[in-house]
């Protein structure tokens, strides 16, 4: 317990470029950038593939491959290839690893919508794009959000590991602390990351509550 007060009680840990607020901000920045890029790639692609039903194999293969690819290996490989002058050597693997969960869940969500519902929407005179955006997406939203959540988990964890390659973020407290046997920093940093991950989870749970229609989430009894 003295580790905790050593870490959180030290004023030096609260200011400057290596302080908790800056590291927290860095962690948030890298995670958010990677998640945003991954979403911009995976969400439209998943909607398209799910809606047209073409290219489902790509989705399955990419999902399996990304689970097998070791995070740390990718990071080191891109850092050796591209150097550490910019943040891209770290952002690229983060995006690579977080695209598949969004892609798979969006695809599965859209494809899994009851075909009768889809036919009914067409029968009401909606066109393809309208069916997708007004009917399929709202119904598939819980799965799509699950994909985003899994991706966010992946990104937060990988950003932690990325600190190994000299990048900022909360992982630095853990990795630098471990290297210098400063266990106060290791334990304090670890707790901060765990809390960060929990807050991200909570955010997604709340987002789901707000955005998913009551009819879809069965909070509203329809029969």
């Amino acid at each position, binding site marked *: 317990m003295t580790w905790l007060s050593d870490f959180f009680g030290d004023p030096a840990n609260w200011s400057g470029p290596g302080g908790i607020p800056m590291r927290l901000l860095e962690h948030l920045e890298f995670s958010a950038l990677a998640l945003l890029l991954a979403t911009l790639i995976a969400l439209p692609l998943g909607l398209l593939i799910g809606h047209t039903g073409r290219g489902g194999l790509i989705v399955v293969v990419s999902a*399996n*491959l990304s*689970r*097998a*690819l*070791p*995070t*740390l*290996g*990718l*990071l*080191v*490989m891109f*850092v*050796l*290839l591209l150097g550490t002058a910019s943040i891209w050597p770290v952002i690229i693997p983060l995006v690579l690893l977080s695209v598949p969960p969004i892609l798979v869940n969006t695809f599965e969500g859209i494809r899994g919508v009851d075909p009768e519902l889809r036919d009914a929407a067409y029968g009401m005179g909606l066109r393809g794009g309208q069916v997708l955006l007004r009917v399929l997406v709202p119904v598939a939203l819980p799965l799509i959000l699950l994909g985003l959540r899994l991706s966010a*988990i992946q990104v*937060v*964890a990988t950003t*932690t*590991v990325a600190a*190994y*390659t000299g990048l900022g973020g909360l*992982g630095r407290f*853990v*990795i630098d602390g*471990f290297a210098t046997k400063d*266990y106060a920093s*290791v*334990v304090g*940093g*670890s*707790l901060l*990351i*765990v809390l960060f*991950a*929990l807050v*991200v*989870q909570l955010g997604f749970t709340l987002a789901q509550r707000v955005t998913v229609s009551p009819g879809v989430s069965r909070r509203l009894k329809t029969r």
Partner: protein
Amino acid sequence: MNDGPPTIWEWIARNWDTGRVGSVKDLLGDHLVMSLVPIVAGLLLALPLGLASVRWRWLYQPTAGIFNIIYALPSLPIFMLLISVTGLSKTTVIIPLTFYAMAVLIPAVVDGLGSVPDHVRQSAVAMGFTPLRRLVQVELPIATPVVLAGLRVVAVSSISLVSVGALIGQGGLGMLFTRAYQNPFMPPVVVGIVLIVALALVADGLLVLAQRLLTPWVRARRTS
């Protein structure tokens, strides 16, 4: 031998089995142990917990909730926090991976058992099966494909996650990555990534094979 930097093949030949700690063969062995134990332990723990959650429905929500939260925790800080309990050992890597495995397998067991059609269960009851016999001979076999699908996810992700254990020096193929980073050099990284992906594919293939052997009726139904 030329004097230039070694190619990947030369590097493998030189480092595969040096007889010292940290040869590639050695790391591969570590990697297998650290990924297999959580898969097996996760399954052994998830089965009774999943069965209990089906038997006592109220248990499922809290169990699933807790494991959902655990699943969201990044592995590296969890390893670090565990060091104060289990010290610098392979157990420190194995315990969190076991929990991640349970997070995937408990819902798989529950979904699998939930996919048993009611009339099948009632037939078994009508035929005079005791609850235990019904579980072993009827319900578990029907749940097998769903559980095995979960196990495939667990096997592949567990094999790739073990590499993070290298950051706390616990061996495994991830050590190739840390080694390559400290002494900037590409071959070990490539060898590490290729071996881990290959290991994951082999494990996945074996589980697909297991599914074919364990659930022959799935194919029989499709062809008939």
